[in-house]
C-alpha cells in the first residue's frame, strides 16, 4: 500500500528565527501590519510503501529523526494520507 507523507519541519519555539523576522518586516512594509509571529520552516512530501498507515507514519518519523529534521533546533509534524 502506498501512502503520501507530508512532513512539516519548523524551528523550535524559543530559537531565534531571523528568516521569520525578515518576512514579518517585509509583510509590514507591504501594509500587512496585522501579521505577527511569522516563522519560516520547511515542507517535505514523499510517498512511502508500507503495510499500514501506522507503519508508514513510523517509517516517516524515523526518517525525520535521522535526516529530515535536526532534533537540536527543529520540531516536525508528520501527516499521512492514502494514495
Amino acid at each position, binding site marked *: 500500500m502506498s501512502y503520501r507523507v507530508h512532513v512539516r519541519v519548523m*524551528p523550535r519555539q524559543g*530559537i*531565534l528565527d*531571523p*528568516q521569520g523576522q*525578515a518576512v514579518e518586516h517585509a509583510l509590514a512594509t507591504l501594509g500587512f501590519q496585522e501579521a505577527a509571529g511569522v516563522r519560516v520552516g520547511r515542507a517535505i512530501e514523499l510517498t512511502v510503501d508500507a503495510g499500514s498507515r501506522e507503519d508508514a507514519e513510523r517509517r516517516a518519523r524515523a526518517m525525520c529523526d535521522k*535526516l*529530515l529534521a*535536526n532534533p*537540536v*533546533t527543529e520540531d516536525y509534524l508528520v501527516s499521512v494520507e492514502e494514495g
Partner: protein
Amino acid sequence: MLRVAVLRFPGSNSDVDAVRAAERAGADSYLVWHRDSDLRGADVVVIPGGFSYGDYLRAGAIARFSPVMQAVQRHAADGGAVLGICNGFQILCEAHLLPGQLLRNAQLTFLARPVEVRIERTDTPFTADYAEGERLRLPVAHGDGRYVASEDVLRELEAEGRVVMRYVTEEGASPNGSAHDIAGICNAERNVVGLMPHPERAFDPVLGNSDGLAFFTAPASRHATTGRS
C-alpha cells in the same frame, strides 16, 4: 611525516587551501574524495569549508552520510585528530561528533570578512601552539554560523573547557549571533575540533595574514616529537 587527509565533497571550496596550509606546516597532505572510505593512513583529518551538497536540507546534513564520514567516525573514535572548518564544523555537528548546530546568521547576511577571535584553550591538537587568551585575526565566510545548543549543552561546554575559540565582541554582538560568542568547540575527548573561521586562508604573509598557520603546525610539531598527532 604527519599525514593530513583533507576531505573533498561536491561543493567543497577550501579543500586545496587546507592542503597547502598543511604542506606549509611540513605535513604530507592529500585530498580524499567523499566516496572513498579509506583515509590512507591519515594522522589528521581536515573537513574543509564550502557548501557540500549545496547545503541542501541543512548545512552538512547530507555530507554526513558520505562513505568517507564512516571512516572519519572510526578515526575519531580511535582518538585521531579531526579539524572541521566552516562547512566542516557544520558536518561534524550533523554527524554528532560535536554537539549543537549552526544556523542562519542572526543578521541573515552572508559574512565574508576578517574577524577578531580569542583562543580559549590550548589543550587540543590544533591550538597547542597558541597561547591561552591569544587574539587572532581570521577570515570568516559563512551564511550559517550561528552556534546554537541547549542550555544544558552550553553549560557542559563551558564547564569542561570545550569552547576552544570565541569571537572578540568588545565592539558589540558576535558577528553571527552565536551563543556565548562561540567560534569553535571540541568534543569531550578534545581530539575533534570545529571552527567557523578559516585558518587555512590565513597561513602565509602573502595572503596578508598568517595568524592561522599554527592550527597546522601544532599537530605537525607534536607528531615530529611524539610520533602521534
